[in-house]
């Protein structure tokens, strides 16, 4: 077996070589493969190749009852399991017209926002790892561990929570969780200041991110990019605000928007979102109503009326939507999962053209991809 000849030509010579970044590569966070056509260190074409962790969740959805599909929702994007479960139970609740008790909705908001913070913390660490800084990763994981401990205590699992049920949540939360969450909110604010001192203000990081990988709003729109990607390009698109679900309208929070569209803008959006999520959690803790956590009258045998039911949520990476097509049977006719990482990655080819390799990796990191979320 002889490897293809590897030659590096000066830029502009027109002679290119193919560089396989992945499927096993430190910067692809899983099993994404980028087929890079390189001109020296400049990328002339970057073609993402996905499907390495394709599990066909949509087919599984057609083969099992609604309640049996719930565990799957935690495993599509394992970093924002709460949001994904929320979308699925949301679609079913819409179809059945179930009224979820307010306490359950508040618990959902608290857990969802904690999940968002933990997801952003993973991104923060992994992004810095892409940029060659290892220490912030471990600081972020230390904070994330606090969230995982809290969520594990109430859900019994650290990542694949499977905590929401049709018409409510699985168990009620206890005082220890409330105390722990308050303590976490109190702890997180100074930690954010530490992150800003160590990372955000750092001149090396600023030089690596400011102006790098600009994604114009128009590009986001045409590719359907959502979440921090579109918010970093100047559109205040947040499903929690534009298509309100659960009890989000009752909370006072801002949607961070930066118009620059570069990697720094996306970085800032996510860091600000941690702050905003803390605000929401604080408010929800303050106003947490008492009462039941599961709706009355959820049928034991769940059959949806015929028709199509969609529910979208703002997951940590953007808009996640479930479309259930029902034909009145116990199992759905079709379950469509619209995942944010899929659309966010699809613009990479166009956005990375002409970039240098390290910048493209910064861009890739700033998109915050979870590969199983793309491959499903």
């Amino acid at each position, binding site marked *: 077996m002889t490897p293809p000849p590897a030659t590096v030509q000066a830029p502009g010579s027109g002679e290119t070589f193919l560089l396989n970044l992945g499927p096993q590569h430190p910067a692809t966070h899983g099993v994404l493969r980028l087929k890079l056509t390189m001109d020296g260190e400049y990328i002339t074409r970057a073609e993402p190749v996905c499907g390495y962790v394709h599990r066909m969740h949509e087919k599984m959805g057609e083969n099992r009852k609604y309640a049996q599909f719930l565990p799957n929702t935690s495993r599509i994007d394992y970093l924002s399991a709460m949001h994904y479960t929320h979308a699925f139970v949301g679609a079913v609740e819409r*179809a059945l017209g179930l009224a979820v008790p307010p306490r359950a909705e508040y618990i959902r908001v608290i857990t969802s926002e904690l999940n968002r913070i933990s997801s952003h913390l993973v991104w923060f660490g992994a992004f810095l790892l892409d940029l060659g800084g290892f220490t912030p990763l471990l600081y972020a994981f230390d904070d994330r561990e606090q969230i995982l401990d809290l969520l594990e205590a109430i859900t019994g699992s650290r990542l694949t929570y499977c905590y929401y049920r049709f018409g409510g949540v699985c168990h009620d939360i206890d005082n220890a969780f409330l105390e722990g969450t308050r303590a976490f909110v109190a702890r997180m604010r100074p930690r954010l200041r530490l992150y800003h001192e160590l990372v955000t203000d750092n001149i090396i990081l600023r030089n690596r991110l400011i102006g790098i990988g600009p994604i114009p709003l128009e590009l986001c*729109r045409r590719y359907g990019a959502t979440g921090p990607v579109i918010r970093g390009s100047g559109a205040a698109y947040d499903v929690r605000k*534009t298509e309100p679900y659960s009890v989000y309208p009752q909370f006072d929070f801002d949607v961070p928007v930066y118009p620059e569209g570069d990697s720094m803008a996306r970085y800032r959006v996510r860091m600000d979102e941690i702050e905003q999520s803390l605000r929401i959690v604080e408010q929800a803790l303050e106003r947490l109503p008492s009462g039941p956590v599961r709706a009355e009258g959820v049928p034991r045998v769940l059959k949806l009326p015929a*028709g199509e*039911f*969609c529910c*979208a949520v703002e997951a940590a990476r953007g808009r996640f939507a479930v479309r259930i097509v029902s034909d009145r049977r116990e199992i759905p006719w079709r379950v469509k999962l619209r995942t944010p990482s899929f659309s966010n990655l699809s*613009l990479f080819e166009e956005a990375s053209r002409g970039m240098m390799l390290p910048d493209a990796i910064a861009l890739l990191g700033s998109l915050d991809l979870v590969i199983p979320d793309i491959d499903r």
Partner: protein
Amino acid sequence: MTPSPEQIARELASRFPPSPPADAPPPAAPALASTGGPAGATPAEGGAAEAGTVRMLDYARCGCHLEAHVQPAQVVAAAALMDQFGFALDTITGLDWLPAGRMEIVYDFFHPHATLRVAVRTRVPRDQPDVPTVSSIFPGANWHERETHDFFGIRFLGHPGLTPLLLPEEAAFHPLRKDFTG
């Protein structure tokens, strides 16, 4: 400037009227159904809604404001219209209505600045599932169409590279077809 659902519905209805049967006079006004129940159809009646129907939907119930059925040949024009209105492409997916012998392609759109969700639908025969690509208008459609081709075998004519995206490179099967057996 964000359009209202009614405005979009009127525009869609007037641009994509039901195709008149050969021996019938064209309808006087475009069909615009009022706020209806759940979107879509069931397998039994799959494909019953005629192209040209535009329906306002109960958002609280089915998470969508508006759905429009168009002819397969009209999807590019419909996508261009949505583009003009400033919509973003949410997703493209297929539905296999095996009992009715048809397949449906659903184009979902969301608006980056407004609370507005629109679904454009078209139906093709199962034995010849061809539909033009909209990737020239929404480049993001490229991947969604590849995925839909993977799962349903729907052919998007004019697509720049309809190779498997999520399935293995040599995959010649379409797992979400209802007659697919592992």
